[in-house]
């Protein structure tokens, strides 16, 4: 199973949580649906779809909570025939993050996931660097490469 982190500080807490909760897939994302770390997905483009859906669910239920004049829901959980999902948002010094956890119901449970999730959040909050992300620099000729890439994609 692959575990990858876009920001290195998320990796250790993610590996620890995945093992403890016996999760099948774990996805850590920003509230805008950008992937920060993941365990168990094989293709980057697939993990992006899951992140878009997870962030959308959290965003829409937060709006529902606003309508009810209450703080956002702490977590959401669904259990299917073979898998269950657990979805929750939480604050960090880098802003709000969202975690999506998928587990096999024969191996783990929502209780087990919840049991270790609080520690996962605490570990992430402790590991999160306080300073900002460095500015990114692309090479001056990126437009030619972009043009070539798009031409290849569209078969032109």
């Amino acid at each position, binding site marked *: 199973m692959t575990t*990858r982190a*876009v*920001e*290195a500080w998320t990796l250790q807490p993610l590996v620890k949580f995945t093992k403890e909760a016996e999760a099948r897939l774990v996805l850590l994302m*920003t*509230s*805008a*649906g*950008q*992937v*920060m770390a993941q365990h168990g997905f094989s*293709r*980057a*483009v*697939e993990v*992006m*779809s899951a992140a*878009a*859906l997870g962030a*959308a669910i959290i*965003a*829409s239920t937060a*709006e529902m909570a606003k309508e009810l004049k209450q703080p956002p829901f702490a977590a959401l959980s669904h259990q299917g025939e073979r898998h269950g999902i657990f979805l929750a948002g939480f604050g960090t010094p880098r802003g709000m993050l969202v975690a999506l956890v998928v587990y096999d119901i024969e191996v783990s449970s929502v209780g087990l996931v919840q049991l270790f999730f609080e520690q996962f959040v605490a570990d992430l909050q402790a590991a999160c660097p306080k300073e900002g*992300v*460095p*500015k*990114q*620099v*692309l*090479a*001056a*000729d*990126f*437009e030619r*490469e*972009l*043009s070539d*890439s*798009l031409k*290849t*994609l*569209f*078969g*032109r």
Partner: protein
Amino acid sequence: MSLVNFTTREITCKIVYYGPGRSGKTTNLHYVYGRVPDARRGRMVSLATQTDRTLFFDFLPIDLGQISGFATRFQLYTVPGQVYYNATRRLVLQGADGVVFVADSQARQLDENLESLQNLQSNLLEHGVDVRAMPLALQYNKQDLPRELILSQADLDDALNFRGVPSFAADALHGVGVFETLKGISELVLKRLAAGSTA
């Protein structure tokens, strides 16, 4: 906001296709999906009504390959165009790196285009983003319709393109202008990234 990983040299950017209902936002994504090789795209996710109108969003991740040594991926989203879905439009706009405004070229749709453009400005402001600071491209779709029904690109530029941003005439159903629009917005987004300023 785009996500950049210097260790693994990856860039992920979010581009939102915005515009009034039935202007062709989902059609743009369907065309892109149909033309991009399997290995370079993910599944197209559509949260739609039973009549296939976008309810929340459409989503298509594409892998552009290496740009300046970075594995570059774009997340393409559409919003629902109907006026009453504003709450979901605002949510989808969160964290956008660039916006493609898909206008319906039909003369009778001009008011809807203007209303949607104003709605874009207002929703961006709610996220603390000035529309003038957001990479934006305009696409004038349905230019294949009979001339007496549509406005020309010059007329639409006069009516909608206050900022003088790149604009593209299109017939998204047949792919005309779809590639050019995506290329246009991609350049704007990556130029902004290269300049080191983020939303």
